[in-house]
């Protein structure tokens, strides 16, 4: 359905190398979680997939064709913040996704088409558990509900790939667990291809079907920008809990403590 291929991709800002020589192939339906120390380029990597930034060198392909170098409806996104339009209600936010692609001049639908789009939007809201909140503005929704709305909005366009940029980073742990279940369920049901950047190692292991770890392999203390990051681990994940040693290895690699839960499991 939709594959992503990166061949010898570099990203440089002037003399600073952010990513060096990335090679990657992701099959349709994979749930790729991406972790890495801050400043390692994982967010840059996501923006490149999104089309917000382009590769300095190398080729990026979507379904075997060059990836468009600006954002488009083939790649949906959910950010940590500012993911929904504050001036529209929950229903409006989902409906606008339908309207934007279809009508060129007014950017709105009318009559029968609007009623149909409204039906689909309400169904999508129900799918993320927001049917009760259709008439509310984002400012009246909790952080978790806002992110559900953002996901619903992104899914309206049936994107080939869905990009999640630390989507649950600002949520309370309990809410985060609910969100994990929602994303997991949507992924399984709709066969999405998902890329998710996260800070939360546990989340990365539990949620994805494949884990990428970004890190710098080489360091030059005299010139911190001389070398960029690469994919240092590429771990296929079964849906069972990974072996604690994997946890620890990745944690050490990133210079973060493995989660206490991981330590307990080891013991």
């Amino acid at each position, binding site marked *: 359905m939709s594959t992503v291929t990166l061949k010898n991709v570099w990203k440089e800002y002037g003399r600073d190398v952010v990513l060096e020589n990335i090679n990657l192939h992701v099959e349709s339906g994979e749930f790729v979680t991406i972790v890495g120390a801050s400043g390692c380029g994982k967010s840059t990597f996501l923006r490149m997939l999104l089309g917000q930034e382009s590769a300095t060198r190398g080729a990026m392909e979507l379904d075997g064709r060059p990836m468009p170098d*600006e954002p488009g409806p083939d790649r949906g996104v959910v950010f940590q913040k500012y993911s929904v339009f504050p001036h529209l209600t929950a229903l409006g936010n989902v409906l606008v996704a339908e309207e934007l692609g279809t009508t*060129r001049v*007014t950017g709105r639908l009318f009559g029968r088409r609007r009623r149909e789009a409204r039906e689909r939007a309400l169904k999508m809201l129900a799918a993320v558990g927001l049917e009760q909140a259709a008439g509310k503005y984002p*400012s009246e929704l909790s952080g978790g509900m806002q992110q559900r709305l953002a996901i619903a909005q992104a899914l309206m366009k049936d994107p080939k790939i869905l990009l999640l940029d630390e989507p649950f980073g600002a949520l309370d742990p309990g809410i985060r667990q609910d969100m994990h279940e929602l994303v997991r369920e949507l992924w399984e049901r709709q066969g999405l291809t998902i890329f998710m950047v996260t800070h939360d190692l546990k989340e990365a292991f539990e949620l994805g079907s494949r884990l990428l770890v970004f890190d710098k392999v080489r360091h030059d203390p005299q010139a911190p920008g001389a070398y960029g990051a690469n994919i240092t681990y590429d771990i296929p994940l079964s849906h069972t809990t990974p072996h604690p040693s994997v946890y620890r290895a990745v944690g050490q690699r990133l210079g973060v403590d493995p989660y206490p839960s991981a330590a307990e499991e080891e013991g």
Partner: protein
Amino acid sequence: MKRLINQTPGAPWRLALGLLPFVLVLLVYLSASATRLAENPDDPLLPSIAAMADTFAEVATEPNRRTGELTLWVDTSVSLIRLGLGVGIAMTIGLVVGVLTGLIPYANRTFSPFVSVLSMIPPLAVLPILFIALGVGEVAKVALIVFGIAPFIMRDIQQRVEELPRELLVKAQTLGANTWQIILRLVLPQVMPRLLDATRLALGSAWLFLIASEAIAATEGLGYRIFLVRRYLDMELILPYVLWITLLAFLADLVLRLIVRVVFPWYRARRS
């Protein structure tokens, strides 16, 4: 005793403190006016409240001796039309230019430096050019208001558009929006309440330019009347006119704030 910054007035005093400056000004006026009138009953500088009320009632209800019109209402309607036109045109120009320069890099490169320079020109200083280009009639008066406040609105709107979270623009693109749809469905709705805010801030200047334009060449209007009767120090009319203008300005501000609250309910909530 607590530090001064940690002391807050109790509930009954909040209103009293707010009223205090008004009461003080009134007291100063009343006692100074009484002193002067005791010395010279015809003193024009600080007339009594009753005399001002009489004069105000007269211009509001009795036809003018020369023109046969109700002075206050003619002045008010003429001035409000000029102000409304000037502010309306300035808002339109400010919105269009501000959105384009804020959103579209080519438009920004082309117009942003020009607008910055334009906003530095004091409009009253180039008045003779306005006269020659636009005449001394209504067009020049409205144009003075437009020149006076449009650059401010343009720059404010441009800045507001630039401040829109990048994420929202990207999100709209991932939903398939083209540039026009982004303007129509994302930028304009988000910028409208900010436009009204900017207009509220510019309204003070707009009044200033209105009154200046009416002082320079006019046959009626609030500013015209004030500058005309200033010739014989008719404070009996000037002071009520000043209060009337203050009231109108206050009401205009209130109306704009109400519009923002009713039409854009999401705006205040988001900022808090």
